[in-house]
């Protein structure tokens, strides 16, 4: 079976995880999934109830469904809330992705492919961000890959705080939706009309505004902060969010200085080798001789700061290095490609993650520190509400 040139890819292991059950999913789509709200949202007022609205608007939006056997249906479109609901209930997709609003109905795009002025091209799309915990594997020691726990989740909280504030204060956006991705990250939908109309270049500019990571996997230094002072946005993020989080939470939560391997990673960020060596010797000596009072993570961090700030090591290069360490360990890591292109798909809110069975619920950015990913309702619990009849 070939749909739109996408060959369905066979899952290697076709076991369906515990929290996830297609029958439960049917119940969920039948009883709980907010079809009408999604329709209302994605219509942005073009729903026939307002004067001068564009009735073709919602019908030009691409939805894509991933079905049970990893069959992938792209370019689905619907003309009403009812059509959308019927399709979802009938096909019972394991995953629903939302794409852009195109110039023409995406389901009929081939009819327009013959040329002419009515080209099939994306016209509007929310500005989206995707932050994935697996991109933080080098700075968390509690879990790796797809796992998250309450020790590393705060990295996401920090990302939300930094991004949300900048999107509102710097870019002037108001309609921002944060959503738990169901497993190990968060998605952000910026829905202001102005955001939806950004060109790819402008999207890339916004994404780059948030970018501080320069190194790749093949270069130790990951964050590079240049210039005599930080940009107002970075400075604000540092003093309001990152610094406090690093010192109060991450330092001890992840035991950043507890072993030689861990602190060597931090010392590698210091450009001056003799300074790094000095600290290294000191901490190695610690093991035998005097055991410092207090938590070794805090003690060593203070020692590092003190050494870098002391008059002995002049020049802002080394002082900037403290900020670079904090940024390296805390600053949001975005999947840039997702944000840069209008036609990128993003999983719809309120989907159920097919691996964890957890519902992709919204997160209130003003209270994001209270969000607990391990307490998000899972499909099995939700459907055990015993809603009979489908």
């Amino acid at each position, binding site marked *: 079976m070939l749909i739109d040139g996408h060959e369905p890819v066979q899952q290697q292991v076709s076991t369906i995880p515990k929290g996830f059950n297609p029958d439960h999913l049917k119940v969920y789509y039948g009883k709980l999934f907010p079809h009408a709200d999604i329709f209302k949202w994605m219509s942005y007022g073009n729903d026939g109830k307002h004067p001068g609205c564009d009735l073709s608007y919602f019908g030009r939006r691409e939805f894509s469904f991933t079905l049970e056997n990893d069959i992938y249906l792209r370019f689905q479109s619907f003309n009403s809330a009812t059509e959308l609901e019927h399709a979802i209930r009938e096909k019972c997709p394991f995953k629903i992705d939302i794409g852009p609003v195109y110039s023409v109905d995406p389901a009929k*795009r081939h009819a327009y492919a013959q040329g002419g002025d009515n080209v099939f091209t994306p016209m509007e799309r929310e500005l989206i961000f995707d932050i994935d915990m697996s*991109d933080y594997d080098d700075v968390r020691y509690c879990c790796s890959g797809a796992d998250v726990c309450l020790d590393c989740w705060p990295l996401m909280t920090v990302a939300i705080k930094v991004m949300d504030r900048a999107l509102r204060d710097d870019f002037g956006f108001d309609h921002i939706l944060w959503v738990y991705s169901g497993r190990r990250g968060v998605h952000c939908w910026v829905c202001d009309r102005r955001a939806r109309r950004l060109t790819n270049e402008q999207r890339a500019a916004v994404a780059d505004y948030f970018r501080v990571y320069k*190194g*790749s*996997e093949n270069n130790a230094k990951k964050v590079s902060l240049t210039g005599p002072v930080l940009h107002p946005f970075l400075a604000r993020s540092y003093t309001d969010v990152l610094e406090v989080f690093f010192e109060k939470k991450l330092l001890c939560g992840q035991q950043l200085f507890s072993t030689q391997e861990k602190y060597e990673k931090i010392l590698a960020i210091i450009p001056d080798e003799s300074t790094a060596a000095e600290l290294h010797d000191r901490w190695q000596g610690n093991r035998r001789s005097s055991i410092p009072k207090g938590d070794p993570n805090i003690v060593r961090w203070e020692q590092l700061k003190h050494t870098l700030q002391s008059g002995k090591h002049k020049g802002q290069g080394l002082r900037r290095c403290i900020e670079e360490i904090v940024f390296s360990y805390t600053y949001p890591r975005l999947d840039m490609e997702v944000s840069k292109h209008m036609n990128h798909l993003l999983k719809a809110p309120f989907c159920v993650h097919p691996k964890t069975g957890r519902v992709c619920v919204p997160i209130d950015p003003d209270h994001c520190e209270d969000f607990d990913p391990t307490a998000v309702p899972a499909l099995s619990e939700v459907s055990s509400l015993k809603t009979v009849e489908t």
Partner: protein
Amino acid sequence: MEIVRSQRKTSDSAAAAPTISLYRSAPNIEVRLDDFELFAIDRLRVLKGISDGLSRGKKPEEMEKLVSELWRTNMRLQEQSETMEKDVISHFVLRLVYCRTFFVFSEDQRKWFLSMETALFRYRFRFESPDSQNVKDKLNQVARSIGQPVVNADAIFFKVPFEEVAELVSNRRVFLFKGYAYVAMNQVVSLVATQFRSLLSKALVLTNRKWTSTIREQEKDRLTPIVEALSTSYLGPDYSQAKEFGEVSLKDIEQLANSSFPLCMRHLFEKLREEHHLKHGGRMQLGLFLKVGSERFDKEYAYSIRHNYGKEGKRTDYTPYSCQKIISSTPGVGDHHGCPYRHFSEENLRAALGKMGVGGRTMDDVMDKVRNRHYQLACTLTFESIHASSCDAGINHPNQYFTDSQKVLKTKVTIFKLLDI
């Protein structure tokens, strides 16, 4: 623009025109057919020079100097009015060459033209605008003359919607507040350059329409052959037409990777084999090099799939990345794409080269090129060392590296139906 075979006649108004044009409308100038082509080639030399400079990572001051030199050697004519005409004519000819996206040319090349023209505009705007200290002094004089306090001209700024200065936003060179960018006077060039780029981008679409609907047919005996020749002559082979890796098995590719892939692709392929996954940038760089559609790439070469990377449009539009594009990419955390000579730390690069069999003197020579930011030369040296054969043209494209390597190794290239230039 009128094009005639006779001698060129200068139009009267040109002398009064400003020295730097926004090219808002095609000039009403008569052009000799020879000049039509020669001017375009001269301008291409300038653009190509800028492009090479940027991909070598030259600093802004070095670039300014380079562009000014390129302009002087290639574009300057005796009279200022002649230079201005040549500027305008050559620009519009290249528009014809680069507007076409559907046939020989790919979207990438149109983007290349857009970027290089904008870069050229930006540098010319800098060195051809009046001395700024002088302007500051005069402005102060004006202020005093009308009884206003003297302002520090540096403190002048513009407030514009952030969308209009995307480039300044992207490298955080403006202050943003509630959707507005506050642009310092000395950044204004970026504002103008952005306008320039967007006007040119729109104009290219219109030109393309005109070209396909009328000009190509009307001019089929005169301009069309010139334009078509220009599009292929100067930029090296067009890899967008290359064939797929066909029925080559994974095992064969592995062998080819060891013998004939440039380091950037070798590294990506290795990572893919190791981790069964590459992030988007890596998938694009390697996938396009291999000329394998992204679904097939997912299915056969990677085992984990992220369907999110849905791209609409003709997949055949994707041209394999050139060295320039790879060098100027910006790999982030977890990424493996980019140019190893530029993006690896020295230590990692040494290790990788060692694995390819580079050592001793050559290793030092390669590292030397890298330090001087001659990444393509470093790659060329690597090629020459492991193939024990010279590569006079230098390496400009990973696919060229591959074909040249295959030629040297005298493998039956035809089996692989690959990249017959």
